[in-house]
């Protein structure tokens, strides 16, 4: 008896799952073209003329500065970067130009957070330079997130090189 009841329930549920809604009683006489909203063509813009990305110089420090490298997910300057930072403050104090401090990340972040992490790294380097006498107004920071890797191999040593701050003069 129990088996019969179970089978009956299952069969009824299968039958019901096959039922659809009743078709509306419409007459199909509206043969019109309705594609205006999607026919407009969109633009194609080429910004290659703007050249500050085309010289490949995002990928390392220039003008006598040395890149500063960071641990995974971190934005504190480690003690093994001391020599690089000592060099950077000497160069920074000796030049008259504005200095651009660029934060970079490996590819393991997502979306906005990785750009904020790159910025925190740039700010750590800037704060260190300012604490040693550099005028804050002489610097400008930009985070490039994961957009400018110097190394694209899938290896730990490669990722290490991408978690960095590059410094260069604004020209």
């Amino acid at each position, binding site marked *: 008896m129990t088996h019969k009841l179970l*089978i009956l329930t299952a069969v009824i549920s299968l039958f019901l799952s096959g039922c659809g809604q009743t078709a509306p009683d419409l007459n*199909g006489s509206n043969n019109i073209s309705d594609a205006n909203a999607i026919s407009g063509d969109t*633009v194609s813009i080429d910004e290659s003329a703007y050249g500050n990305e085309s010289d*490949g110089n995002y990928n390392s420090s220039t003008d006598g500065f040395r890149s500063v490298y960071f641990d995974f997910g971190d934005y504190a300057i480690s003690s093994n970067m001391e020599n690089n930072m000592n060099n950077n403050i000497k160069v920074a104090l000796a030049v008259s130009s504005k200095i651009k401090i660029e934060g970079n990340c490996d590819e393991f972040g997502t979306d906005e957070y990785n750009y904020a992490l790159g910025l925190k790294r740039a700010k750590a380097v800037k704060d260190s330079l300012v604490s040693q006498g550099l005028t804050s107004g002489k610097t400008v920071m930009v985070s490039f997130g994961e957009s400018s890797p110097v190394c694209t191999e899938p290896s730990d040593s490669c990722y290490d090189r991408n978690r960095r701050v590059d410094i260069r003069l604004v020209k």
Partner: protein
Amino acid sequence: MKHLLFIILSLHLFTLSLFGVDATLKIEKDVEHRSRIALLDGSSVKNPRVFNILLSDLKISGHFIPDTTHHQGDITGKFIPPALKGQEYVLKYSMNQQSGSKLLIRLLKASDGTQVFKKSYAVPSKAKMPFLLHKAIADVNNVLKYPDISWINRYVVYAVYTTPGRSEIRLADYTMTYKKTIIKGGLNLFPKWADAKQRAIYYTSYKELIPTLYKLNIYNGSKQKIASSQGMLVCSDVSKNGSKILLTMAPEGQADIYEMNVASRSKKRVTKFKGIDVNGRYIDNESRIVFISNRLGYPNVFKKSINSAATSQVVYRGRNNNACDAHGNKIVYSSRESNNAFGKNTFNLYLATSGSSSTRPLTATGTNQFPRFSANGSVILYLKQKGHSTSIGYINLTSSQSLLFPFDDKKVQSIDW
């Protein structure tokens, strides 16, 4: 008798498994609310691509149980092939791409061939063919009085890295069949739709000394400079009427969230934390925002009122919840769930609400990132990587159906829908 019972229960389980591609979701809408429908191709040349797009549209709508066989036949007349008599509807269609794209559809009752709906569509571009198909299925859906699915007609805009220091901003239909690069050259990131009609985008350009936000009309190319900021600058969200935007910017070198009145360009600082506050999204009728912050020492989802300082934690699980999107009071976030510093990592998506601490898993395998709600909040777009393949995925939250489409752009930077 036991065998018969086993067979029936197995059939039920098989039916459910068909719709559980990627998600561990509760079936919220029973299948009896869906219409069984078959597609019948009346084109002079059989086109599997057209059939597959129509089939995807029907599936992801959540309102149909489509027959997955590519039937061919005469588009005219009332004749319904005997094999299709078990369906409720037959959608006859004909696609002609000799000059542009022309589509004719006829929706018939399968029982007697009565015509329910007939419409023709045309567009000068062959490439835009997918949009004709999406529009046709959205119309069929409306004719049958199902809830609106016009989100299938929308463009997806996304940025991809091409080489170090360079990117492109592209448009696509939701299946990624249609693709067009609208900005190339330089480093242009974080595209975001500026209006509900998708006529303009905001994006961040790096062509100047510091990041600069532009608003670009994608039809006539007119461009306005909106703001610039050292450090970083991202348009994270746009209010419903387009009058306000949420920016992540760092005028003092500190990433915080600001709300800008687009007309007056006046800005209000919404977060003031010394760590990282990013990814602001409007919730609760734009009176509050959710955002990603590392104020607990790791990235997580928080919320706060636009006009008061009180901030509260939204998500209480996971130690690396680094991106989110919101619609109404619904929040979807991605969570990094493996401990490997490098290499393969698991990111899964979870659904939460602003008024509750409970979360619901949406994905279970692979790397799932960049979640974005559809315009009506019923579907979530995301990027999935599993092994060496990348797909763009969709989860219909109402019907629990999931779809994945191959996606060959390797390094996606940001997506909006």
